[in-house]
C-alpha cells in the first residue's frame, strides 16, 4: 500500500532532468556528512594498528595490540560480564516491554498516561542521577550488588526501547486479524501466540537489539551498581581512557565496532521485513 503511494508521488517525467541534477547536489551533501561522521571512527581503527604507543606518531603497522588484548585476563573477564549482562537485560526488557505494550494497547485506565511517562523516564534523565538513585535505592532494598543489580538497572533503561518499538508496531497491525481469530473460536492465549506475537516479533527483536547495544555501551549506571566482583567492559574502557589510551583499547573498540555492525545488520534486516 505504502510503496504504491510512494511510486505515484514521484515527479512526472517532464521534470525528471531537473530533479536529477538537484539530486546530485543533495548526494554530495549526504556523502560529505557521512564522511565526517565516520572520520573519527576510521582514525581509531587506523591507530589500533599503530606500532607506536603514543597516539600522535605513526610507527608502522602491527597486530600486536590485538594479541595483547587476548592475553589480558581482566579485560576478557569484563567482556564476558558485559555480554551476559546485555543478554539478560535485553531479555528482561524484551519480555516486560512486549507484554506491557500489548496490554497497554488493549486497556484504558486512569494512570495509563502516568505509567507510560514513567516507563520512558529512564532514557530522559541524566544517567548520573539514575546511577546514583539506583545505588541508594538498591541498598535501601538490601539487594547485594553484582549481576542482579546490574541487570535491574540496565533493564530499567532497556524496557523503554522495546516498549516503544512494539507499541509503534502494534499501531500498524490490522486489528481485524485478531478479531477474526476470536470469531473463529480461538482462545485469547492462542490469539496472542499465533497471531499477535509473530506479527510483532520483528519489533521485539529490534527493540531487544537496541537494548543490547545500549547495555553494552553503558558506563555511568554500571559504575554505581556493579559491586565488588563484577566489572564491565565499557567501565574498563572509560577508566583506561582516563588513565591514558593505549592502542590496546583502540583494538578493543575496533572489535566492538564489528560486533555493532553485525547487530545493526541483523536489526536492519528485521526492520525491512516489517514492510
Amino acid at each position, binding site marked *: 500500500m505504502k510503496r504504491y503511494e510512494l511510486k505515484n*508521488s514521484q515527479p512526472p517525467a517532464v521534470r525528471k532532468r531537473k530533479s536529477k541534477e538537484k539530486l546530485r547536489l543533495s548526494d554530495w551533501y549526504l556523502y560529505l556528512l557521512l564522511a565526517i561522521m565516520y572520520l573519527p571512527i576510521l582514525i*581509531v581503527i587506523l591507530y589500533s594498528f599503530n606500532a607506536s604507543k603514543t597516539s600522535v606518531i605513526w610507527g608502522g603497522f602491527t597486530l600486536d595490540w590485538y594479541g595483547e588484548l587476548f592475553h589480558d585476563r581482566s579485560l576478557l573477564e569484563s567482556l564476558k560480564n558485559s555480554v551476559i549482562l546485555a543478554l539478560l537485560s535485553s531479555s528482561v526488557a524484551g519480555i*516486560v516491554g512486549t*507484554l506491557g505494550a500489548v496490554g497497554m494497547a488493549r486497556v484504558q485506565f486512569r494512570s495509563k498516561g502516568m505509567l507510560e511517562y514513567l516507563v520512558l523516564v529512564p532514557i530522559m534523565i541524566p544517567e548520573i*542521577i539514575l546511577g546514583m*538513585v539506583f545505588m541508594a535505592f538498591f541498598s535501601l532494598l538490601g539487594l547485594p550488588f553484582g549481576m542482579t543489580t546490574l541487570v535491574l538497572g540496565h533493564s530499567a533503561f532497556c524496557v523503554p526501547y522495546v516498549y516503544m518499538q512494539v507499541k509503534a508496531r502494534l499501531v500498524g497491525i490490522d486489528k481485524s486479524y485478531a478479531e477474526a481469530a476470536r470469531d473463529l473460536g480461538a482462545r485469547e492465549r492462542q490469539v496472542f501466540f499465533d497471531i499477535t506475537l509473530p506479527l510483532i516479533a520483528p519489533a521485539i527483536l529490534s527493540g531487544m537489539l537496541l537494548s543490547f547495544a545500549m547495555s553494552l555501551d553503558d558506563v555511568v549506571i554500571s559504575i554505581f551498581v556493579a559491586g565488588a566482583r563484577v566489572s564491565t567492559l565499557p567501565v574498563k574502557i572509560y577508566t583506561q581512557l582516563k588513565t591514558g589510551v593505549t592502542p590496546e583499547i583502540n583494538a578493543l573498540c575496533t572489535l566492538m565496532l564489528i560486533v555493532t555492525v553485525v547487530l545493526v545488520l541483523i536489526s536492519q534486516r528485521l526492520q525491512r521485513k516489517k514492510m
Partner: protein
Amino acid sequence: MGRKSNNWLLIAPMYIFTLLFVAGPLIYMLVLSFLQKADVWGVEFVFTLKNYLKIGKQVYLNTFWESIKLAFATTALTLLIGYPFGYFMAKLPEKRKTLFMLLIVIPFWTNALMRMYGWIILFRSNGLIEQGLMALGLIDDSLKMLYNYKAVLAGMVYALLPFMILSVYSSAEKMDWTLVEAAKDLGAKSWQAFVTITLKLTLPGILSGVILVFIPSMGLFFIADILGGGKIMLVGNLIQNQLMSTRDWPFAAALAVILMLFTTLFIWGYKKITHSDELEGLL
C-alpha cells in the same frame, strides 16, 4: 470478562517493574532533595528547602542559563545540518534508503567516548591536522582548536546529529509527496511548496528531533569534560561535581529534580503542539 483480566496480567510485569525500579528511585530522589547534607558525609533526615533556594543563587542560575544557551545552539545547529540530510535521505530510492539508514545507525551505536577520542587525535595541538598544515607550511604555531566552547559545541552537534536526522527522516519518509506536486501544479514555486507543505508536514519530526537533541545536551557532562578541557560547566557537570567532590547529594538531587521538571515541560509542550504521543524516530 476473562479477557480484561488477561490484559491486566500482561501489563502487570511492566507496572510492577516500573513502580519498583523507576518510580521508587525517583521518589527517593525527590525526598533526598528536601533533606539536609550531613556535615562530613551522607544526609541528615531533616526537612529543608535550602537546596532549592540555593539553586536561586546567581552562580547556579548562571550555570542553568549557560546550559540552556549551549543546548539551544546545539539544537539549532543539528537542525540546520540534520534537516537537509533527513529530507534528502527520504527522497532516495528505496534500496539506498536502507543503506543510508544502516550508515547512520552504526556510528550512533558506537561508543561515544571512542568517537570523541578520534576527534581528539585529529584536532589536538600537534595532532594530525596541525601536523599536516605545518608540513604544508600554512601555520607555524598551534591553532589551539580544542578545549574551548566551540569544541564542546561541535562535539555535542556531532554526538546528537543522528537523533535529528532520524527524526526528520521518519516524518519526511511518511510524507505524501503528491501534495507538493499538487501545490506546484497549482502554480506554487518550489520554495513556496516547501515552506507551506513540506515544512508543515515534517513539523512533528522537527519537533521530536528538537526534543531528542535538546534534552540530552543539557546533561552530557563527559563531552564538556573531554573536549572542553573541564572548563565548561553545564548542569550535568554541576550535578556530577556535587556528587563526586562536594559530596552534597541533596543539592545534586534538587538540581536533578529541576532538570527533570524542565525536561517534562518540554515533552508536554511537544505533545500539546503535535497532539501526538510518540516521538518520531526515537528508535
